[in-house]
């Protein structure tokens, strides 16, 4: 049987970073194929190559035995490949019917859009998918689940033979996900090849026929689902040995700095309780979308929460008041440095002193000299590589930008440092320096709460690992209990460790 799609040894680099090395994927008509791998394994890049967003640098892609024409989203659709992204991309101002048919609206003999036919066809597709959506409704305000249905209707309307769904169930409730899985089965039974990217292994094992696992841009395994087990899949996904890149110094935990009790925000996270002691690094692990960042934002007071309490050094922290959190010695280093952490065109000095200006000013006037000496001190302590303290931070590398963000907050002498993905997108050497720094500060009694999606970082750095899944804490592991398999299984919903 010839495969419908045959991807052989494709490679793709962005700048110097290899997103794909030799990725391969074979799809047959009438199967649901799971594509698995950790964050950053190259799944999305591979899917975007199929979608026509990226053009691969090397390797071959065949569809129906003929070469696949790359690099055009329109051509991909015409060749029968439809990709449904995790975040559906609908047009909020247009009707659902038009969202389904945009660019391909049915037209009358005179070439004008046939609104009645479009509405009818959209309604027929929605019915076929088993949902009751009004084709005249605007897409604005549609739930994520319904948005995905519209995207699938769009794929069906192009008579797509290959339907790729990128983590379609990540943002859905159980019932909504169930409906989506039914739709996927129906598509398969209709003869389509369905590619299903998911981190929920239970879903993969109940739904899919075959699976392919990627790691670091390469395909590491491809197997019939019936021939494998969840723990085997997790081993394929993780696969690498831990190195001693991340030296966390041993410390004896001191007093409780942060105590979170029953923190709940309806529909976002539920009943989260944990403690962070002085001198301790606590990692918050879990998949993207599991609610980690939201918990941290609630603790710091950026978002409101519905129930529960947050205590810092034994005293309750008022909700939704970031200033109070700051005043009590809590510092938050957000995930998105460019957007939330730095003023890109401003100098290193300005960025470093931004939050401590109060302490540096006298009679409301900021002392330039003091501002400068604080920045210089931290630049040296963090081994910042720069061309002068007046250099705008936008010219620094990602790793050095991260150091500036860290120094900005460490300059406030916090008791609790909250870092969200501290080493995302920075090179290995700088990564190790950020780790050394965090470890050093913890050694001096700083309590650190670290969100990280990188397992080696979590296991290497943390004294205690909290794992979240779908808004709940699913595991609390000490340093000695935490293994790659345990954390992954708790994060993906497989409780037993085989």
């Amino acid at each position, binding site marked *: 049987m010839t495969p419908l799609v045959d991807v052989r040894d494709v490679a793709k680099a962005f700048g110097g970073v290899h997103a794909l090395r030799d990725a391969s994927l074979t799809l047959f008509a009438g199967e649901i194929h799971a594509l698995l791998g950790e964050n950053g394994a190259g799944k999305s890049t591979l899917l975007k190559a199929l979608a026509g*967003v990226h053009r691969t640098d090397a390797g071959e892609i065949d569809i129906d035995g003929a070469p696949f024409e790359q690099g055009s989203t329109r051509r991909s659709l015409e060749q029968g490949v439809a990709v449904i*992204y995790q975040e559906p991309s609908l047009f909020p*101002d247009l009707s659902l019917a038009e969202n389904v048919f945009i660019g*391909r609206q049915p037209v009358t003999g005179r070439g004008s*859009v046939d609104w009645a036919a479009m509405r009818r066809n959209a309604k027929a597709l929605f019915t076929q998918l088993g949902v009751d959506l009004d084709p005249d409704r605007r897409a604005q305000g549609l739930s994520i689940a319904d948005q995905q249905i519209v995207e699938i209707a769009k794929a069906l309307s192009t008579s797509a033979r290959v339907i790729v769904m990128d983590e379609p169930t990540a943002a859905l409730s159980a*019932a909504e996900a169930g409906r989506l899985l039914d739709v996927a089965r129906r598509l398969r039974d209709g003869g389509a090849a369905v590619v299903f990217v998911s981190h929920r292994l239970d879903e993969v094992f109940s739904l899919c026929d075959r699976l392919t696992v990627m790691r670091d841009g390469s395909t590491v395994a491809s197997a019939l689902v019936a021939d494998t087990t969840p723990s085997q899949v997790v081993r394929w996904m993780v696969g690498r040995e831990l190195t001693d890149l991340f030296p966390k110094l041993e410390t004896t935990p001191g007093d409780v700095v942060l105590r979170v009790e029953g923190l709940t925000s309806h529909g976002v996270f539920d009943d989260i309780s944990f403690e962070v002691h002085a001198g301790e690094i606590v990692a918050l692990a879990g998949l993207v979308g599991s609610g980690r960042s939201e918990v941290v934002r609630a603790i710091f007071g950026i978002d409101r929460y519905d129930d529960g309490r947050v205590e810092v050094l034994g005293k309750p922290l008022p909700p939704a008041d970031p200033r109070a959190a700051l005043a009590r010695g809590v510092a938050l280093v957000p995930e998105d440095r460019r957007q939330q952490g730095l003023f890109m065109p401003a100098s290193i000095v300005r960025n470093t002193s931004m939050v401590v200006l109060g302490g540096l000013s006298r009679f409301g006037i900021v002392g330039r000299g003091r501002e400068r000496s604080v920045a210089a001190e931290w630049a040296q302590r963090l081994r910042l590589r720069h061309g002068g303290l007046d250099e705008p931070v936008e010219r620094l590398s990602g790793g050095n930008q991260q150091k500036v963000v860290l120094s900005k907050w460490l300059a406030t002498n916090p008791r609790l440092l909250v870092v969200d993905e501290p080493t995302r997108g920075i090179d290995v050497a700088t990564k190790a320096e950020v780790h050394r720094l965090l470890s050093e500060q913890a050694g001096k009694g700083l309590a650190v709460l670290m969100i990280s999606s990188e397992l080696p970082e979590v296991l290497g750095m943390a004294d205690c690992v909290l794992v979240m899944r779908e808004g709940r804490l699913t595991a609390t592991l000490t340093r000695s209990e935490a293994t790659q398999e345990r954390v992954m299984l708790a994060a993906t919903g497989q409780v037993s460790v085989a």
Partner: protein
Amino acid sequence: MKHVPGAMFGATLGTAVGKAVGSREAPVAGALVVVLVVTSVVNPRFLSDQGRFDLMVAIAITGLMAIGQTFVLVMRHVDLSVGSVLGLSAFISASAVKGQPDGSLLTVLILGLAVGLAAGLVNGLLVAALGLPALVVTLGTLYVFQGVQALLTGGTRINADQLPTSVVRFGVSGGLGIPWLMWVCLAAALVGAVFLRTRRTGRDLYAVGSNPPAARLVGIPVVRRTLLAYAVSGAAAGLAGVLFLARFGGVDSNAGLGYELPVVAACVVGGVNILGGSGTVAGALLGAMLLKTMGVSLSALSVPEFWQQAINGLLLIIAITADRFVFLHRARIAREEAIRLRRAIRLAAERELEVSR
């Protein structure tokens, strides 16, 4: 749940009427009627033959530019250079027939269109191909086109006696009681409305303005569509330049000065979303009608000019406040619906669980 305010009330009147009553354009049309009625009751000369003619001529120029501007605004861009394009087109097309008493109106029209089209393509190329922000680009070309015009005119002006009689007559006559200038504007509105409503290309403009990255993902040629929108806006402003020439029987270096903001205001009052994705040509034209009529009416009611400006501004703010309010209202309904739905799904799931036990 219908997404238009008043739709529930409208539904009882039958779908088509309901849609018209519930539409974003309806309150603008309503306000226009109120202004017309009130003013003509207070000052009967307001809607005399001459008064009507003058009002429609004034509307035609702003309205034509607002129609073009709609194309750009629905794409989440803006064209601030339209006033300068008007001036440039009026001057260049007038120069071509200067001193030819029997020169052809058609030549002037074609030249005006061509100048506008060229200017629009310059804007479009800078915005679409180079990806520069529309606000800054068209603010820049506003001054550049103005500068070019000043360079060409050298401070001179072209008067009615130097223009072909056909052009001058075009500005002061009409058919079926409607000035020719207004006919041009209405024809443009019809073509524009049909295009935006029924052509795939026209629908693409809304898609791009509604969600630009998604438009790229579904394969809409965003650069070409942006070029098209600016070409249309430029051409409309160019044509408006000819209307200007005919209306005032001449042109000097001040022609079109400060026209851009009333044009954008007309669109916004008429329900064209300044953030892209929605709005109609009919709405933009109604907005232009309302603003121009308000201006003339306030003069007819002897309201001082300062207050006229303030009232126009107030109208603009009322329009966007109303839009915002409707948007928030819709968002709240959608959110409540989602919560209800989730609750229902959870209850159903729990019930199922109990049954299976």
